């Protein structure tokens, strides 16, 4: 086992953090989409990052499949990868854009911002 500091953190090789949401700044200008999106030109969102390792935490709301896969991974990592850290809840955002007929359209797009991450 790797040696631990007094705060319980591991020394040496940086361990991967558990599956959680991390800040993500989305900029439509950088994507080259500012020629059709009027607003917003950028917004604050999240992405999911980290490992789904055994034992899975309940706040990650793992699927039953993820529990099995994680257990199998813990027993034989070379045979089975861990389950995936992925968005488990998303929320919409409003977008004002220009459609193919040059009309200005408001639309509420579903699943644009990660609210929580889970093991899937």
């Amino acid at each position, binding site marked *: 086992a790797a040696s631990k500091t007094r705060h319980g953190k591991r020394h040496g090789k940086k361990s991967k953090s558990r599956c959680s949401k991390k800040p993500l700044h989305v900029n439509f200008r950088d994507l080259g989409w500012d020629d*059709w999106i009027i607003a917003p030109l950028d917004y604050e969102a999240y992405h999911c990052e980290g490992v789904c390792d055994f034992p899975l935490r309940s706040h990650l709301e793992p699927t039953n499949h993820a529990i099995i896969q994680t257990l199998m991974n813990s027993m034989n990592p070379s045979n089975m990868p861990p389950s995936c850290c992925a968005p488990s809840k998303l*929320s919409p955002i409003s977008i*004002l854009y*220009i*459609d193919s007929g040059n009309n200005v359209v*408001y*639309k509420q797009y579903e699943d644009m911002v990660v609210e929580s991450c889970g093991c899937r």
Partner: protein
Amino acid sequence: VQPLAIFPPAAQKSSKVTKIFDGQEASKYFKEFYAPPPPPPSIDRHNKATNKDLIEPHDYMLSIYKTFSTAEKLGLNASFFRSSKAANTIASFVDSGQDDLPLSPLRRQQYLFDVSTLSEKAEVLGAELRIYTKVSGNFRISETDPVDIQLLSCHDQQLLDSRTLDLQDSHRPKWEVLDVWEIFKERQHLSPGKPFCLELRAMLDNPERELDLHLLGLHRHSRPQQKKAILVVFTRSKKRQTLFSERREGRALLGLERKAKERGSGIKASRRRRT
């Protein structure tokens, strides 16, 4: 800007805006909400003149966006607002009709809207015509004589909706809103793919006669883009649409073609990058 009020279904309506926020948070959001619209994008921003730069969104559409995106930040579901008619898509179509010669009297106007980009599968929850009126300073009328603006079907001259102009405050510019939901649904069903057409006239009582629409500031000559009439259609699509579907619908190709002209052979690299 004509402010768009937020009306949650069960809340009571105050003079202008329903009070749905409290304390400092409310003042912060309303400050943002009523802030003047952002300046129109410059034509030559970073030497990239796009269609977007040439299209000026109507204040009403900016207002819709500001209201609903602010609501989202507060965790409110925009579809509950009365003004949204529970729609998740609100499309605006700018009038493409033309007037006759500028000096001839304008008794009637035909408004034409190309609604071909509207999905036939989407459920239409509402449609309204928004027209900008500004009564001419030369127009004098006694307070007892109401002026009705009437909307007729181009197809059979059936009266669709009418609005009595408020002449007490008539010399201030104003957007009049006329409900065209029924006729829009009917026309969409009967003549899909054809431009949506509406006819407008202004009637004066006693003696009953049609007014010259110039007097109400309805003529189209030298009218800026943002003051042109718009048809606003409220729809709800159950199908979850991805952002890429809009991207695919022509705009990407148009953009690439335009950029190719600007940059010569740069298009291949651009297309590769997008792919």
